């Protein structure tokens, strides 16, 4: 062995310089922590599982990424707890106690895990957006909801550091995670029964809010920042006891008041007038493409291209003179009024499949609804059109089946909410066996006749089924009686 004989005295660094160096060392350890990377990968994987199939909206994106960030927060809690408990592990207590870095400085240095958590939250958020490309969330973006994803991992890290300074045992970290999961379950079910799907103290907001409603994301973020400040104060307690105590008290007040405020502005019931005002026709994003009018909710305009793609094969089958139903997107609340009185329209909700089976199902449902509406089955001005009816014998049923066979080849020919029999199926198959141009030409020439439920408009093409007597539709929807799920013969 060799030993340096001459000693060289080095001046002691300033306290903040030494603390910063220790913080950098903790950051390097965190960077190498398997908990950190497993947490990040697991949270991304869970986010993908939850988000992969549906087109993202900002609401669902923030729900899913928020829940995923809880997983990341748990992993950071474990990593930070291990870092904080390092002083007491493997019998190192005595060795480390005699270094110039006292417990206060080591606690302050551990705070570096908090910005690391926040930055990792940003990484998770951005990665979530990138992983969903080329689709991009639609709807109403809330920066406060986005920041929740940044704050939650930071809270996890701060809790880990705070617990680790007090209870450094290796088993305490996992136990703390289990305890917090139990607390989250309690918080999750606390708010059941109110309009908000979870209690205001639950870290992630599940947005079942309607457009136009007050979004308390700002208050929720403030509540989480209060929790973060409280845990940071707990970490800093050995270094700055008085300041930490004051910050802790203020943090509790901020968190308490914010959550109280959030709960106060969260309605127990939906104010329908406010909600409907936000989705009134003049607020919608309406565009006309190839003669079809598409009206999306505010912020949902990007989905019009998906709807257009689904509608196009049906719309091209319709004669020039045919009325082309509009596409009308509605929110959770709808007054059932069509965009233009008397004009048929297809109603669509706030979900759309993104890939695979979900995308195919969305597209297929749109095709079927558009076909059924085009031939007059699902009329927007008919309040009972959501119930099933019997379309047997009606020639428009056969037309609808033929259109489905053309627009969605290989799929079954069922028309939504319309019953029919073997005769209609055979008639449709007979039409499908004919050249498409021949049927199109015929329909173009006899469209009004074909749509008449009591007429035999397809007789010229060899369809021989006979329509039953058609009931008279009430003139005023208010006069309609309570309707059974099955309305009998389609009016």
């Amino acid at each position, binding site marked *: 062995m060799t030993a340096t004989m001459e000693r060289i005295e080095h001046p002691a660094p300033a306290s903040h310089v030494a603390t910063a160096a220790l913080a950098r060392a903790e950051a390097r350890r965190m960077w190498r922590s398997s908990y950190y990377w497993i947490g990040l990968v697991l949270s991304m994987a869970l986010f993908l599982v939850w988000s992969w199939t549906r087109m993202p909206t900002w609401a669902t994106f923030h729900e899913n990424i928020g829940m995923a960030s809880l997983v990341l927060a748990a992993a950071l809690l474990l990593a930070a707890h291990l870092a904080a408990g390092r002083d007491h592990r493997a019998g190192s207590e*005595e060795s480390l106690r005699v270094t110039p870095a006292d417990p206060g400085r080591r606690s302050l240095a551990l705070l570096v895990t908090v910005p690391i958590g926040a930055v990792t939250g940003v990484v998770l958020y951005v990665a979530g957006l990138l992983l969903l490309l080329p689709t991009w969330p639609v709807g109403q973006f809330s920066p406060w909801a986005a920041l929740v994803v940044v704050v939650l991992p930071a809270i996890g890290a701060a809790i880990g550091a705070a617990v680790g300074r007090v209870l450094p045992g290796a088993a305490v970290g996992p136990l703390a995670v289990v305890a917090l999961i139990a607390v989250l379950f309690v918080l999750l079910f606390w708010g059941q029964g109110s309009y908000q799907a979870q209690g205001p103290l639950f870290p992630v907001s599940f947005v079942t809010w309607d457009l136009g409603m007050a979004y308390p994301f700002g208050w929720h973020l403030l509540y989480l920042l209060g929790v973060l400040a409280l845990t940071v104060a707990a970490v800093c307690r050995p270094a700055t006891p008085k300041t930490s105590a004051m910050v802790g008290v203020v943090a509790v007040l901020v968190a308490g008041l914010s959550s109280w405020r959030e709960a106060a502005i969260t309605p127990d019931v939906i104010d329908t007038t406010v909600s409907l005002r936000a989705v009134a026709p003049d607020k919608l994003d309406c565009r006309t493409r190839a003669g079809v009018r598409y009206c999306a909710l505010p912020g949902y305009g990007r989905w019009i291209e998906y709807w257009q793609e689904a509608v196009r094969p049906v719309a091209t089958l319709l004669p020039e003179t045919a009325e082309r139903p509009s596409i009308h997107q509605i929110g959770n609340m709808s007054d059932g009024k069509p965009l233009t009185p008397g004009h048929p329209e297809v109603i669509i909700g706030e979900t759309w499949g993104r890939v695979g089976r979900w995308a195919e199902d969305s597209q297929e449902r749109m095709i079927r609804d558009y076909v059924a509406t085009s031939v007059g089955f699902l009329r927007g001005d008919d309040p009972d059109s959501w119930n099933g009816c019997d379309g047997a014998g009606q020639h428009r049923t056969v037309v609808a089946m033929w259109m489905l066979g053309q627009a969605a080849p290989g799929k079954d020919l069922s028309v939504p909410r319309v019953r029919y029999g073997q005769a209609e199926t055979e008639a449709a198959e007979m039409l499908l066996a004919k050249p498409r141009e021949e049927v199109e030409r015929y329909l173009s020439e006899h469209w009004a006749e074909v749509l008449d439920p009591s007429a035999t408009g397809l007789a010229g093409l060899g369809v021989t089924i006979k329509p039953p007597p058609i009931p008279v539709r009430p003139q005023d929807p208010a006069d309609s009686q309570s309707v059974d799920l099955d309305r009998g013969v389609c009016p």
Partner: protein
Amino acid sequence: MTTVTVRGLSKHYGSRTALHSVDLTINGGVTGLLGPNGAGKSTLLRCLATALAPDGGSIRVSGFDPSVPAQRTEARRRIGYLPQNPGLYPNFTAYDLLDYVAVLKEITATRRRRAEVRRVLDEVELTDRAKTKVRKLSGGMRQRLGLAQALLGDPALVILDEPTVGLDPEQRMLFRALISRLGEHRTVLLSTHQTEDVGALCERVVVMSGGRVIFEGSPRELAGVADGQVWLAEDPPKGNSAYWRNADGLYRTIGQRPSGAEATRPSIEDGYLMLLGTAAVAEVIR
């Protein structure tokens, strides 16, 4: 050279007194602390290393009083400490562990820290194990790594609590060489059960028993305690409770001369044993 001054130091663990008003002054070089188990050696070293607060008395390390928080930090900046259990994180590599401890010892500049870690790794001959995880190091290597962390920052006072325990003879030789060279320009205080270590390393010896310092002096003076009381005999001596055979097959004993025995030159161990025997007798008389 760093001076360590201890005055009236006492420490109690419940009703048991570990240190009885210890007075000690250490001025440079290597000082060995000898004593049986429970003599108070480790307690004294822990107090000097600022790992343990004494119940009474005072300590000064280069003039700094560890009982005053600000001065304690200054004292710690001058101390390198290897406890009996150095506490090495099994999942750290040797390099990472030393790098972390270097940061705790306020070696903040990255370049200087890297150089310092390499220096101490080189000193304890673990450079080729820098990237090896601690759990994969042998017991001797871990002990050397513990010494390396104590040497980080080139402390003026190096406190080593039984550093040669569990080492094989070859590694002990390496340790001795290193420690003796460290002592040329630093103050080194080491506790040990090995009187050979004291003879090989120390310019000064402190013997403790029952929490008291019962001897201070040079190794030669310690051996001199048994002068004229060490005997070699061909047969097992009768009446002497402690005797042992040496490499020549002769029986060595201390105390009263057995019949037929011849006087021989005392060793440090003889002096140490003689001293402890006297102290034990004194305890009984008291």
